[in-house]
């Protein structure tokens, strides 16, 4: 049986408002690194809270490590680690006091599972007598992860651990997750950063309470309908409205220094025709090239063409 299973989970907070989650189903295999990818308000935190037994769903069934989230919430609470979206440790306690507190709360000691958190904790150990509130963003995050891991949980739930963290710290954090995965811990992680999707084994794209698709990042990319092209020009932002005005365009949006373009139909001569059209609009030095879509392209595609 899979470690985390959701079946048709629905949840609304306010009556008559659109539900936070609607018929969400997915499962996570043992030892898997599973990503929930979606913007703020997509329902990621609600999923975490239901799985960590903090919230009751309105409908549907869910199990974690074989335990039912409603009936067996005590068992679940002793076998999961959870890092909520906000930094949730005691700011007025020192690094060491925080870790000690959570270790004892989970009925263990720091030394018992030290091997697991060693790599992470050693980075913050020089500041162990500093109050948690005085740590930098990256260090807070490492402390929070250490606290969530200190009892060697079977399943680790991480709600947007990299939000508001800079690119370098984000990279380090994902490296840590990979090591934890190798220790056999099942990890469910959420992120609004599409570029982090490729670091997960399987992902669920989620928007306004609905799952858009679930698969490995590679399969999701492979399922992109049709071909995707990149347009390059010295004046990209002037190019955008002109390209959009072209008849045969299905998708056209900025992507960094390029424009990403998809045609309504993939014909061999469409790219050349587009270039001619753009030339007539005064864009002389435009280059077009077929590219492999990334997760963000797939997400945009799913948003504009929901099933």
């Amino acid at each position, binding site marked *: 049986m899979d470690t985390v299973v959701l079946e048709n989970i629905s949840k609304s907070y306010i009556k008559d408002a659109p539900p936070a989650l609607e018929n969400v189903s997915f499962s996570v295999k043992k030892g898997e690194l599973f990503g929930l990818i979606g913007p703020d308000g997509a329902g990621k935190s609600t999923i975490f809270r239901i799985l960590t037994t903090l*919230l*009751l769903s309105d409908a549907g069934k869910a199990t974690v490590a074989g335990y039912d989230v409603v009936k067996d919430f005590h068992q679940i609470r002793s076998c999961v680690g959870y890092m*909520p979206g*906000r930094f*949730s440790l*005691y700011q007025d306690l020192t690094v060491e006091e925080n870790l000690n507190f*959570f270790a004892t*709360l989970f009925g263990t000691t720091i030394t018992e599972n030290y091997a697991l958190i060693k790599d992470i904790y050693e980075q913050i150990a020089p500041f162990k007598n500093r109050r948690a509130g005085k740590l930098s963003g990256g260090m807070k995050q490492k402390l929070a992860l250490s606290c969530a891991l200190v009892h060697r949980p079977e399943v680790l739930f991480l709600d947007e651990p990299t939000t508001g963290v800079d690119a370098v710290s984000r990279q380090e954090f994902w490296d840590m997750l990979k090591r934890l995965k190798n220790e056999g811990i099942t990890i469910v992680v959420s992120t609004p950063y599409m570029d982090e999707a490729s670091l997960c084994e399987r992902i669920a794209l989620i928007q306004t309470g609905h799952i858009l698709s679930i698969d490995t990042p590679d399969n999701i990319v492979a399922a992109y309908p049709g071909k995707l092209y990149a347009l390059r020009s010295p004046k990209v932002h002037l190019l955008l409205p002109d390209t959009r005005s072209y008849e045969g365009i299905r998708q056209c949006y900025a992507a960094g220094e390029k424009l990403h373009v998809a045609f309504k139909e993939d014909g061999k001569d469409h790219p050349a025709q587009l270039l001619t059209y753009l030339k007539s609009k005064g864009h002389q030095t435009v280059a077009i090239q077929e590219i492999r879509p990334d997760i963000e392209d797939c997400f945009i595609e799913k948003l504009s063409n929901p099933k």
Partner: protein
Amino acid sequence: MKQFMVFVRKEFYHVFRDRRTLLILFGLPIMQILLFGYALTTEIKNAEIIIVDHAGDAASQQLTTMIAASKYFDINRSTASDEDIYKAFKQGKVKCAVVFPTGFGNDLLNGQVAQLQVVADASDPNTARTLTNYITAIVADYQQQVNPTANIPMRIEPVTRMLYNPELNGSMNFVPGVMALVLMIICTTLTSVSIVREKEMGTMEILLVSPFKPVYVVLAKAVPYLALAMVDFIIILILSVLALEMPVRGNLALLFFESTLFIISCLSLGLLISSVTRSQQTAMMVSMMGMMLPTILFTGFIFPLENMPLPLQLISNLLPSRWFYVIVKAVMLKGLGIGVVWKETLILAGMTLVLLTISIKSFKTRLS
């Protein structure tokens, strides 16, 4: 058990590392006791008084001397006429006058009813009542001296309030009330704020997603504050004895037992507040403002409950502080034992039990 102790220790860290908490915990009671004890008593000292002596005999002069000697009155004039009273009252300097009719001393010696007139400026009814009470007390005192064996019923009503407060010390009534008020505010505020803070900071999520049982979270929160509130109680007690010259006539152990009951009921109330509020500010507002007003109004230490309309009297019965106040007055000031206050104690214990049960039940094991 180890988990529990670690949790309790953590709570103490929070308290001793937060200046605001420390201020509420130790600054507030000291300030309140001194404020109510000194500034807000009904005690009036050195009030100016006019004596109109139409008798001019030994008795009237002795009484005048006694009034002058008391710390409550300064004699403004003693040879004035009746009209002077009204003039002086209108100027507002004098609030009270005593008129001895002719033949005052004779009447007294002959065993007849000797009358003397006490005039007070009743535009300030509280002061007026207090001043006339003082005069009555002095007259009674005088009569005892002159004729200790006399069995004549006093002509002016003795006021119950003075029975156990022969020096007319105003703070006596206040201190038990302030004790109730301060413990109420501190216990509800600190517990509710400390729990809501965990909600606000997001740490409550982690606590709930741990094997530590939610009911222990509640208890582990309550234990440190029970201990701290007891320390507060001791501080208040010492302050009232040393600074406000309060007696502790009854059994100290009984007093502590009753206080513990009361504190637990307040802590439960704090827990209850914490489960219906989301932010620290709201929790603080509800505990401070929401608790202060009913406690002041319905405990009976500022506004006598007997004078209230029946519906309000019934409401006052729902307040634990009302019963605690009665108990403390009885034990501390009158030196009475459990034999007299068992009924109140039982009511207080019942309330505590109900509040504690509701608060534990209402503590959510999930987020909503």
